[in-house]
């Protein structure tokens, strides 16, 4: 009669699972689909990266038209509040695992639009970001370097920002609501607003 050591068996299964995770992570890292959705000025940087000059396809990264079939979201520059709404909607549509790369200083602290009434300062407060690239705009070489770094992170299992979004959803949702679900004016100067009165306005 064969005696089964349950502790050993469990460990073996766990090792198998780890091995399977490693294998999927390895293949995933060589087959990344980036969403063809661009905000701000970085959209201009992407065509040379995707086409013959720098050719990102040799790393297995291909642009995809819809969020439901993509797994990298590129934030290529400043995000206005209207765009931020669409970015969040797009991000939440993407299947897991998913990764976000933010380009340039505008996505970190607003860049030159830091005091604008319609530009989000830190995009990382609304959706989780895996890697940010410095520069205004970053050179294609820097973007390629980031893509290789992301591939390594995916391979080693470090790119876990989407997990962070699920775990801290309350934090992200509160920040999003602060931006989109305002019910009252922010500044007192709103009382200076001119409200047109039809009866008073007609000069007949």
């Amino acid at each position, binding site marked *: 009669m064969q005696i089964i050591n349950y502790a050993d068996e469990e460990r073996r299964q766990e090792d198998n699972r780890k091995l399977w995770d490693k294998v999927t992570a390895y293949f995933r890292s060589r087959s990344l689909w980036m969403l063809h959705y661009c905000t701000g000025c970085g959209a201009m940087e992407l065509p040379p990266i995707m086409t013959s000059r720098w050719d990102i396809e040799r790393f297995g990264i291909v642009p995809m038209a819809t969020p439901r079939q993509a797994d990298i979201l590129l934030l290529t520059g400043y995000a206005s509040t209207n765009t931020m709404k669409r970015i969040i909607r797009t991000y939440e549509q993407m299947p897991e695992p998913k990764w976000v790369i933010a380009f340039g200083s505008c996505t970190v602290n607003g860049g030159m639009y830091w*005091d*604008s009434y319609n530009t989000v300062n830190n995009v990382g407060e609304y959706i989780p970001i895996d890697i940010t690239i410095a520069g205004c705009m970053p050179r294609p070489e820097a973007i390629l370097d980031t893509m290789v770094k992301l591939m390594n992170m995916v391979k080693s299992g470090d790119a876990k920002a989407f997990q962070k979004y699920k775990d801290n959803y309350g934090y992200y949702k509160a920040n999003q609501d*602060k931006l989109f679900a305002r019910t009252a*004016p922010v500044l007192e100067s*709103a009382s200076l607003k*001119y409200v*047109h009165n039809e009866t008073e306005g007609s000069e007949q």
Partner: protein
Amino acid sequence: MNITELLKDLNSRGLEAEKICDGEIKVIANKDNFITHLHYLQSINYEHLANINGVDYIDENEFEVVYQIYSYTDKIHIIFKVRIPREKPVIQSIVDLWEQAQFYEREVHEFYGIHFEGNKDLSPLFLEDWMDLPPLRKDFDTERFSEIVMGSMRNGGKK
């Protein structure tokens, strides 16, 4: 009609017109009868309304509405300016003259709070859920707004 004839013509109609450069003139009109002047300009081949802008002259307590008009036959660009008081920013709509003014006026209304009498739809065009003062007015503190809503910090905050 060339540019000197046009200037003479407009001055004789009681408008302040002056030449800025070749093919570009500036006209200052009164808010009570500017529509008749625009109507006249349209009748002498100024068929293209390129844009309507708003300007906030807060020190003079006035708004300025600027109509950019162009003639394809004469190749002259007219910058047509009308001033209105800041306390009661109401001006007549020119939708009857140029249909596309509908959207330009909506935009100016949204960003300066200027009311266009006769424009049927002045609903928001670009801003979503905006409840504050129209953002391009000079008395709207955009930095303070950004600090409260977006958490921005001058020079990146304290080091």
